């Protein structure tokens, strides 16, 4: 079955994506939604901005999907990541995995989100209610909550 890693500038249509996971041999479907949270490290977040190096991120994301398919006994795996400005509660990333059994589906889904966060060139800027904003993990200012 086709598996994919994609970006979307528009809101993620979770119900439509879920349809891609149906397969007669799939006894387990695991999905993960990463949503925009209204706080981080003690600051109130009002919105998020995601930026990606689309060409490289698409390749690296597809490698992760391929690794999940190779190392776990699953039927299919899909991932969609948003770019642009997102409001609180919006789905920033959606991952769906189907497999014969639940163990592999959970493991593969976990693998994909963990690897994505470590390897795929996507950046997140938080906008706070104080009017400040910052790129997560990129701020080198001492004592800034967004610094490493």
């Amino acid at each position, binding site marked *: 079955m086709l598996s994919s890693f994609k970006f979307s500038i528009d809101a993620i249509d979770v119900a439509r994506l879920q349809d891609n996971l149906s397969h007669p041999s799939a006894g387990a479907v695991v999905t993960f939604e990463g949503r925009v949270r209204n706080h981080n490290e003690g600051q109130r977040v009002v919105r998020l901005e*995601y930026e990606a190096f689309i060409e*490289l991120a698409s*390749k690296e994301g597809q490698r992760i999907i391929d690794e999940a398919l190779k190392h776990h006994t699953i039927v299919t795996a899909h991932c969609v*990541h948003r770019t642009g400005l997102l409001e609180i509660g919006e789905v920033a990333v959606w991952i769906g995995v189907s497999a014969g059994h639940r163990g592999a589906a959970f493991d593969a889904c976990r693998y994909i989100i963990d690897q994505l966060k*470590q390897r795929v060139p996507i950046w997140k800027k938080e906008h706070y209610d104080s009017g400040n904003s910052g790129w997560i993990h990129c701020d*080198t200012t001492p004592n800034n909550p967004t610094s*490493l």
Partner: protein
Amino acid sequence: MLTLHLHYFAIFREQAGKPSEKHSTHASTAAELYTELQQLYDFKLPPSQVKVAINQEFCDWQQRLESGDHVAFIPPVAGG
């Protein structure tokens, strides 16, 4: 002298004030080029926190640059 296509993302795009540019340089490796750009645009991230991509593939800091290469420095990622 090499002519390169540089691409900036996220904090580097904001600090450089542009998403991309053509850049002429005497730097021969990605590491030398990053040092040059740190001085030019006041990039504060140390190389240990940055990755390099040449022609849309991750590569080593010591990779030799060639004229026409598309080079991007990757600040710490934060997807998901």
